[in-house]
């Protein structure tokens, strides 16, 4: 290892990895990259499912009482004469939230990119526990299948909202759904297992398997964010699992954890759910922030502004994320004094969030900006996440939350964070690491068109939701037009619905680009974005086992435009300059690769 370290350690088929059958290689694979790609295809499928449900919600809110186009193919239990029924409508909102949060955004960020990027970026051959990693994927798929099955059982899908507030979720006589409510609980328990298995793996790999020279503060922010996210997940998901098991007991064994009639407490569910749920919010945004940081530094050709404070901001957000869950419960009947403390901790999250936004701007300041598709989407992320963060301040201030709580204002806010934030980050990350996955580039031209159209229709869809929320439109109501105070703003609901349809349609550009480029994309050069990350020392796609020999790391991840780089404006972590000394390799634990 201390022998000649060359500028570009060549990748190639690892000796230990003999040719494998198709099944071992692509289906029951233990290769972290294949597992990442498996997660990618599965979660993009669930993203499509979630989107289709959203379109039906928007149809109903824009045109209540009008038959859903194509609704004729749905069974009588969902539509009547093509018109969406109230019981189907609440299944739609419940499952849209459930699929998007648990089976689309979370696996897209964590399942795909923690798996794919961590070993590549820290310079190791695979995850610490490759087999557990494989199990984590298959359990996630099983959980998704159980959840999807809810639509095909008698009574249809769960009906208590993705937050499953008890006692509505616990009592089939009150919700009208018997089997699928139980399926929801079971699916979440399985998904939690998958998530914990993955997280343990990510944490262990990052702590133990960094290449020589990859000090903690030489890790890219994407890896830092995924590391902190894994810690959040390993602590938060078991709480949800526990709550889901209690709910399942209430549903099946006749316990009464959440049933007040028999001594239970409905608020217990909310405390448990949000004790998981708020860290979950950060599980859904931190990896996005990390990857966007990498991409903005690359696109700006500049080191990240304030790398250390960016790391501490990630840690700060994660820490504060544990003590703000009560802000989901300001109107719940929880003691108002508790509300005061949760308000303060919630408002304080604005501080690390502001640090991040200003440091991204600082990174772009006096840069030499290249507007490739990942960079455009990353800038879109910063501008949209800012709106989502700022609108959160309205609800954090408890008196202002009173009129806004559980209205469309919240829906606007959470979509600015989850779509404007997480999804824009994914629209940046997917084309950025696409060549590393598939050896080809996605089309820049289609990518740019997709970005601009998405950016416009996205804002047309979600911004007006703030206004109808201020007007008082409650969440999850089937027909706003029966209220006198909501009737005047119905034209805005129609406008939002048209915008949402356009937004959905535009996503087919992305789907086409993604699928078409698999076969017909331009062949990727080795380092298409002229980036510094360890992953670009490998050929595209990277081979099983990644490096023949563990590479050395010589510097931090963001040495763009460094004076030592000479006439180039980047200096990869793996390049050894004459002045560089080889790092002393950290001993690998026994049994390491």
């Amino acid at each position: 290892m201390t022998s000649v370290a060359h500028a570009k350690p060549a990748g190639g088929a690892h000796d230990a990895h003999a040719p494998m059958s198709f099944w071992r290689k692509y289906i029951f694979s233990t290769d972290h990259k294949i597992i990442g790609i498996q997660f990618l295809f599965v979660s993009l499928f669930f993203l499509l499912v979630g989107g289709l449900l959203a379109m039906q919600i928007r149809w109903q809110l824009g045109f209540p009482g009008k038959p859903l186009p194509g609704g004729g193919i749905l069974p009588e239990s969902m539509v009547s004469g093509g018109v969406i029924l109230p019981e189907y409508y609440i299944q739609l909102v419940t499952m849209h939230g459930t699929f998007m949060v648990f089976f689309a955004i979370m696996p897209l960020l964590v399942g795909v990119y923690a798996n794919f990027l961590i070993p590549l970026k820290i310079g190791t051959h695979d995850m610490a526990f490759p087999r557990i990693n494989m199990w984590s994927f298959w359990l996630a798929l099983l959980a998704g299948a159980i959840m999807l099955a809810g639509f095909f059982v008698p009574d249809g899908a769960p009906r208590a909202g993705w937050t499953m507030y008890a006692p509505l979720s616990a009592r089939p006589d009150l919700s009208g759904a018997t089997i699928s409510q139980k399926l929801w609980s079971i699916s979440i328990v399985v998904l939690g297992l998958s998530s914990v298995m993955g997280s343990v793996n990510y944490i262990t790999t990052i702590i133990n398997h960094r290449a020589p020279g990859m000090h903690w503060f030489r890790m890219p922010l994407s890896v830092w964010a995924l590391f902190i996210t894994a810690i959040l997940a390993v602590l938060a998901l078991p709480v949800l699992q526990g709550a889901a098991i209690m709910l399942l007991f209430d549903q099946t064994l006749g316990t009464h954890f959440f049933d007040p009639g028999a001594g239970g407490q409905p608020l217990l569910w909310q405390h448990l759910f949000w004790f998981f749920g708020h860290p979950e919010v950060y599980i859904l945004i931190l990896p996005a922030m990390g990857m966007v940081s990498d991409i903005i530094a690359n696109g700006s050709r500049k080191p990240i502004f304030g790398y250390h404070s960016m790391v501490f901001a990630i840690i700060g957000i994660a820490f504060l994320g544990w003590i703000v869950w009560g802000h989901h419960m300001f109107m719940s009947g929880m003691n108002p004094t508790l509300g005061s403390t949760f308000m303060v901790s919630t408002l304080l999250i604005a501080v690390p969030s502001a640090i991040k936004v200003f440091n991204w701007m600082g990174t772009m300041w006096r840069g030499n900006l290249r507007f490739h598709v990942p960079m455009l989407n990353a800038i879109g992320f910063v501008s949209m996440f800012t709106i989502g963060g700022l609108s959160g301040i309205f609800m954090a201030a408890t008196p202002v939350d009173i009129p806004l709580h559980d209205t469309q204002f919240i829906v606007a806010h959470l979509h600015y964070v989850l779509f404007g934030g997480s999804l824009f980050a994914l629209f940046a990350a997917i084309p950025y690491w696409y060549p590393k996955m598939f050896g080809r580039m996605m089309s820049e031209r289609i990518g740019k068109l997709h970005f601009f159209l998405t950016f416009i229709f996205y804002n047309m869809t979600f911004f007006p939701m703030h206004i109808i929320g201020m007007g008082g439109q409650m969440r999850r109501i089937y027909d706003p037009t029966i209220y006198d105070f909501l009737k005047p703003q119905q034209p805005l609901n129609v406008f939002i619905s048209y915008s949402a349809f356009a937004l959905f349609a535009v996503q087919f550009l992305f789907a086409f680009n993604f699928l078409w480029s698999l076969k017909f994309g331009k062949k990727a050069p080795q380092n298409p974005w002229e980036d510094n990350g360890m992953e670009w020392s490998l050929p595209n796609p990277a081979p099983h086992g990644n490096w023949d020999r563990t590479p050395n790391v010589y510097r931090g991840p963001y040495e763009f435009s460094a004076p030592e780089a000479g006439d180039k404006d980047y200096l990869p972590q793996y390049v050894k300059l004459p002045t560089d000394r080889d790092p002393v390799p950290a001993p690998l634990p026994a049994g390491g690769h």
Partner: protein
Amino acid sequence: MRWWLPDAGSTFAGPIDTLFLAILIITGIALVIVEVGLVTFVIRYRARPGRKAFYTHGSTRAEVIWTAIPAVTMVALGLISNHYWVLMKDKKSIPPNAYHLGVHAKQFEWQVTYPGPDDKLGTADDFTVRNQLHVIVNQPTAVELSSEDVIHSFFVPEWRVKQDAVPGMHITAWFQATKTGEFEIGCAELCGMGHYKMRGRVFVHTPDEYKAWIAQQAAGGTE
């Protein structure tokens, strides 16, 4: 078309709307700084032949500034908000002269219990009306919320009043209506398939009107 919060109908609306406006101004300034900054940088620092990025790892001074300003602003906002929060939600803030009503929520209706001519809840002359909330203008009113089955949320937009009704709990919410007329109650918490139609009507009366209505109801009359 309405572009703002609903017309003010209670004493809470003043402070809440002012705070809303203040936050809108603060966040508006932050938003303009960020978005204008981004657009400026995108135009000014776009890649051109011969340009090179300025190599820097950051500035401690800048970091301190953009950490301290949000921190101070948020703490100040928290302190001001808390003053009004306590006033609106704390049990001790319910005025002693408040007129008490019972509101019992169930799938999918609001059952309002009135104290009857003796102005006392829990006595024999109490009577209950479905989906009709009658209150007196400029009179502090406390509604004692309970629920039959699942969680509902009592929401009157014009009053800026929202409070969940939780089965097994008794929660009192208070307000003081400032405008006579008719309004609506909505349910703000998903409570089942009829969630959307859990609509109640609100009537804010002058004291005389209210007295007349109570008397009429107590006599078994219907409106």
